């Protein structure tokens, strides 16, 4: 995990060029943007979770709306901005605009996570509350909030960390006064060529977030093997239809661009070799990252014995993607197979921490009691892992591997730094964008989404097979 930092600190000698004024100013902006993005995302996500529960109880047989609401999280930033600017006109430029964009991108993620938390913790309590004559407000304030407030804080921290270290969105809509630490790092690298200060700021940023994470808001996770949730207290028809409409308007703008791209079908034949190569490259990166994440999660699960390890993983923040990319560029040769391996490793290292914070860490903490019971009964570590822990964790491992594969299919930042040509569809899409071809770029980004979805479903398919094999 620490290897990118170690490489960068070794490569760039730390020079004494430090400006406290600009650092504190950027830190203030980072905290402000991260805080309000987290708050808005959690509020919206909580409400959306109620809508997702409503639709899961009625429509899940026909369509998985989780994926629908998660899509803004995976689209390229330009298309998210264009979609939002169609929704909100005039769009507020500045820190407020940054918060709005981040909140919109993270509504789906927060909603899906909180929906799962509600399913796991409240599967029966809501029915019991209703039968005992509790009012909805009473249920929310006395049952729901006490049980899931730490989970909400956990989700808040997840969004806070992501938006704290966000780069592209503040750069486009932040206005000049919205410069955060990531933009400061970028300024140091690109404008002042001061890579050593950039690395130092990135290191301090990670340390600050790590210190913040030491605050104990670790939520307890109930391990409910077959959660079922059907409750009038936790379903919200209004929430579902409102968010669905909002997202439809957003996607209309995106898909109108995709449709425009279909009209330039002739470009497909002209660039068929590059597109085929991009598709294969994207699949390699996606599958590679998925497998890498699976291996890393297996290793983390196997080594997860102590609380300090959990706190380290929960608090650690990988350096900015530009610096990760550069750290891997510096290590080893930059030809053919090595480039793919570096991209896969770089992405896996930057995603695994994020996935760990998404709930996997807390889940492992809860499984400690099973480990202790097995140990008391005389089982070895190996036996405990393969016969007790792995059957309980494999579904989440495959899910997170699939999610990571989906993210990796659309990666641009790390790939751009390491690759020496357009090896994936994401890079190709950006190249088309820089040649006036926004329609075709939209079409490529849509194909990319489909590929990511295919890989995600492949991991889910393998998970089903493995579950059957271990009879779980």
């Amino acid at each position, binding site marked *: 995990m620490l290897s990118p930092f170690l490489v960068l600190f070794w490569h760039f000698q730390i020079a004494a060029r430090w400006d406290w004024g600009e650092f504190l*100013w950027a830190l203030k902006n980072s905290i402000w943007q991260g805080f309000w993005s987290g708050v808005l995302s959690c509020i919206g996500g909580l409400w959306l979770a109620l809508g997702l529960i409503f639709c899961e109880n009625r429509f899940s047989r026909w369509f998985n709306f989780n994926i629908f609401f998660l899509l803004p999280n995976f689209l390229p930033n*330009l298309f998210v*901005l*264009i979609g939002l*600017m169609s929704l909100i006109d*005039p769009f507020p*430029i500045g820190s407020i605009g940054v918060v709005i964009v981040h909140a919109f991108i993270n509504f789906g993620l927060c909603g899906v996570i909180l929906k799962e938390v509600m399913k796991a913790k409240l599967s029966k309590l809501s029915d019991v509350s209703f039968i005992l004559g509790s009012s909805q407000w009473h249920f929310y304030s006395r049952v729901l909030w006490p049980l899931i407030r730490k989970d909400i804080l956990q989700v808040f921290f997840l969004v806070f960390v992501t938006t704290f270290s966000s780069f592209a969105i503040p*750069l*486009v*809509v932040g*206005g*000049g*006064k919205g*410069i955060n630490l990531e933009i400061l790092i*970028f*300024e140091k*690298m*690109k*404008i002042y*060529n001061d*890579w050593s200060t950039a690395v130092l700021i990135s290191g301090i940023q990670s340390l600050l977030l790590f210190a913040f994470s030491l605050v104990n808001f670790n939520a307890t996770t109930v391990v409910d093997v077959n959660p079922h949730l059907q409750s009038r207290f936790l379903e919200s028809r209004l929430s579902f239809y409102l968010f669905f409409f909002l997202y439809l308007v957003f996607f209309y703008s995106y898909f109108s*661009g995709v449709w425009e791209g279909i009209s330039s079908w002739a470009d497909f034949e*002209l*660039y068929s*070799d*590059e597109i085929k*190569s991009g598709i*294969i490259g994207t*699949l*390699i990166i996606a*599958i*590679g990252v998925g*497998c890498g994440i699976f291996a890393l999660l297996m290793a983390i699960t196997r080594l997860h014995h102590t609380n300090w390890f959990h706190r380290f993983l929960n608090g650690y923040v990988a350096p900015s993607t530009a610096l990760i990319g*550069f750290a891997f*560029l510096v290590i080893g040769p*930059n*030809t*053919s*197979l090595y480039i*793919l391996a570096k991209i896969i490793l770089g992405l896996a290292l930057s995603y695994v921490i994020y996935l760990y914070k998404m709930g996997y860490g807390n889940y492992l903490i809860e499984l400690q009691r099973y480990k202790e019971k097995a140990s008391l009964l005389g089982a070895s570590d190996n036996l405990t892992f393969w016969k007790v822990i792995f059957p309980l964790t494999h579904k989440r491992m495959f899910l997170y591997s699939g999610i990571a594969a989906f993210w990796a299919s659309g990666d641009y930042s790390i790939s*751009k*730094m390491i*690759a*020496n*040509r*357009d090896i994936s569809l994401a*890079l190709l899409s*950006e*190249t088309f*964008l*820089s*040649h*006036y*071809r*926004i329609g075709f770029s939209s079409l490529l980004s849509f194909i990319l989404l489909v590929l990511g979805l295919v890989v995600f479903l492949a991991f889910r398919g*393998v998970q089903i*097979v*493995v579950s059957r*094999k*271990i009879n779980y």
Partner: protein
Amino acid sequence: MQHFIIFIFSIFFVLVLSFFNRKSVVDETQKTLRVYGYSSFTSKLGPGYDLKKKFEQICNCRVEFVEAADSGVLLQRIKLEGATLGADLVIGLDQYDLQKALSEINWRKLDFSQLEIDEIIRPALSNSYFVPFDWGVIAFVGRKEDPLPAPKSLKDLLKPVYKNKIALMDPRTSSPGMQFLSWVYDAMGKDEGEKYLEQIMNQAHSFSPSWSTAYGFFSKRQVSYVLSYLTSPLYHQMIENNHSIEAFKFSEKHPIQFEFAGIPLDCKECSLAEEFINLMLSDEGQKVIMNKNFMFPVIKSAQVGTPFESLAQFNHLAQFKIPSVSDVDFLIKSWTSIRRGDKNAK
């Protein structure tokens, strides 16, 4: 579990083999010319692909393009890989990158003073290490059918009717953005220029990190005007058969942007690099660059009989000079200060 691992590795192996199974046969005895540039040049959409094919036919060598995200990464990459793999030619630096490039890497001296070029290009040859291969005129671009009155000057852009209608670029991350900054200071001077920039902060729709993002907003009709090039409408006319896009002539003289090529001193295939530059500057090479980049060629004869010829008559141009380190430093620091809302730019 074992079956899963075998299954995934099989798929992975097949994909990797397909990825590296190239049609072209690589002759290991052939010399390889390593060219560093941006994807806009080196990709099939850019001129690099056609130039590479033409060059490989005549040189009995292989051309390998290495892309980089921006000039900072490009120069770092050359420093990392140049000694071992070789960095023979660098393409795509603009006048604001030259001083940084000179301070980071040693370059071979080039002499193209005998080139038959337009007098507009002559100032770009004033340095000894980089040669220009195309150029463009910075201008605002809009739609003819837009109900708003066409702006006629930089000062017009501050009128209330244009609020949130203009897409600009951040000069820290985009070359046209830097050109805009320079345009303002050259036209208005330091004090007036700073006041203007403070006002344009609140007037513009956005300051995108790249030209492509800003042009994306314009293409999707989020804005009415975008900072681009005089030749941008030609793309829409020639490729999309769309004649509704036009570039506006401002009362302030328009800045010029040049793109340069240079040969690092540590090149392994230095003579091949010079021959490649010669191809780029030939009539044939210049036509390829012109038609792919939609920028003016440096060799005048290349644009004869093309839609670029009439546009090249545009003579309301600012005097070109290669900015010094202190010039670039001033521009960046003043922009950063104004963006942050500091009263006095450092």
